[in-house]
């Protein structure tokens, strides 16, 4: 009987050891095979969401491994994005839209920071406003981004939105005179981009009417917001959701898909 009990315990320990080892191996396998997303960015205040997301652990919270890669200017950054040297880019609106107009098939998935210029004229003049907004930052992906990895991009965008929330919370709690020279908005906002596109005279007669719209992937931003709205909803997220133009999903969860 003692022998039987010992055998039982030995079996149990063996199973435990195997389970732990399997878990360790599985984790190691997962760690080595989880893709590291190389995010190119500029060293400007408008790109702050990248650094906030990295420093505050938002990428990790969303389950994406991100390596930040700094670029001196948007032209070099967009070249790197096109060549595949980086996977995602946070680059200037003007250069990004010009690249798209020139035929580069980048897709815009989120907005970033725009420098604030305290000019009463800018508030009254749409063209001046667009000119200012063209100096802001956009988040872009290359056309080769595989459909099977759509989830990764949604997670990255969710981390980006978290970074925006962290920044807004910091601004609302900071005492004394707040030095906020940048307006952040993670919404890609097609209509704002369309206004800038027109101001920069980028639409040519040979382009289809939906040329720009085909490069603005608002669905990703909407899916990322949906992902965050599943958790605790705070006023900042609710405000983003109110401003977003996202087509609602229609159907009960138990509807079967073909």
């Amino acid at each position, binding site marked *: 009987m003692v022998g039987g009990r010992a055998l039982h315990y030995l079996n149990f320990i063996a199973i435990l050891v195997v389970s732990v080892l399997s878990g360790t191996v599985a984790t190691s396998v997962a760690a080595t095979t989880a893709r590291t997303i190389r995010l190119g960015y500029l060293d400007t205040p408008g790109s702050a969401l990248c650094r906030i997301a990295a420093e505050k652990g938002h990428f990790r919270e969303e389950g994406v491994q991100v390596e930040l890669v700094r670029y001196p200017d948007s032209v070099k950054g967009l070249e790197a994005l096109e060549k595949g040297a980086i996977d995602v880019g946070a680059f200037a609106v003007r250069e990004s839209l010009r690249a798209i107009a020139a035929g580069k098939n980048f897709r815009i998935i989120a907005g970033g920071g725009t420098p604030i210029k305290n000019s009463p004229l800018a508030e009254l003049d749409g063209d001046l406003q667009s000119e200012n907004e063209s100096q802001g930052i956009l988040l872009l992906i290359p056309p080769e981004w595989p459909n099977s990895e759509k989830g990764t991009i949604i997670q990255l965008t969710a981390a980006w939105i978290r970074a925006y929330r962290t920044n807004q919370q910091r601004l609302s709690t900071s005492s004394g005179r707040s030095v906020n020279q940048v307006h952040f908005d993670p919404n890609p906002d097609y209509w704002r981009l369309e206004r800038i596109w027109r101001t920069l005279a980028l639409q040519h007669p040979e382009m289809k009417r939906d040329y720009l*719209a085909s490069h603005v992937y608002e669905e990703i931003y909407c899916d990322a917001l949906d992902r965050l709205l599943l958790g605790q909803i705070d006023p900042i997220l609710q405000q983003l959701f109110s401003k977003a133009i996202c087509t609602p999903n*229609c159907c009960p969860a138990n*509807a079967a*898909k*073909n």
Partner: protein
Amino acid sequence: MKRIIALTLVFALTASGIMAADLPKLRVGYVPEPAHGLYFLAKEKGYFKEEGVDVELFQFGSAAEGVAAVKAGKLDVGTFGTTAPLLFISKGSEFTFIGGMMIGGQAIITRPERLAELSGKDLKVYKGKKIGLVKLSTGDVVFRGALKKAGIDVKKDMTFVEFGSAAAVVEAVKKGAVDAGLVWPPHFSLAEKHHGLKVAHYIEEFYPDYTCCRIFAHTDKVNADPDTYRKFLTALIRAYKFYKTNQEETVQVYTKALKIDEDIVRNETYVKKVADSNPDPLRKGILDFWQHILAAGYVPQDYPVDKHINTQIYKDALDSVIKKNPKEKIYQEMLAFYKKNN
């Protein structure tokens, strides 16, 4: 003799196979709402093939994905609400509305103890209330239009609380976080069945014959082959007659195809008649809907949406059916409805 029969059979089967292979194909996207069952009726009763078109149906859970599939050329026809195709059109997509799939269908639900307070034929009962809704859903847009017609200012007289899904709206109503919620079929029936909530109003009561899901296609495809789309709509017109005159079989077809509770399908389709599976393009309804979207500020600039509505293909389809069935009352009613709404 047996050899002759066998040869005849082989010949007939081969001929039908060849004919099916020759029929123009349409890949049609839809969402699993009871009112979309007209597609399945037309397929089940063989109307598509009889009219000369081979239809393949694809179910989507997301209107955005479905519309994107039409834009990418992966679908030849889409049925994804009215909001989604209009938003895409406003941004430059070349879509054309050619028909309809659903008229009406939105309802306001509340807790049973609030029912008396929210009863009546006047939308003013909602003044001062918090209404949960899914932003940009058909109900959101049409309700705003109904409130405006009733002289109610949505910004001053009530509070809209936006949610990401119909399920979230139902949850909010259940918990009392909002006074009432606006959802679409089958969500309000599910809310009644599973959570004890009650329908306070159907939006139809305040805004008759409003557009819900529309049928649209890429303009290039419609212009290149209007005859195939006419055959497609002819089959749907015939399916509509069947839906109006064969309740039990329609319920069975809808239930099986859409995998929605049979009682809910029957109740919504024939008892409460919350929506009409009507293939009419409803041009005036689409134009009104666009104005409500603009008034709500969802799109910042106007666009001539009328250029994207083709009612002639449907009219030709309806005329062809009436020509073959001149005494059929339902088709005459459809013609009168067409004249009034287009």
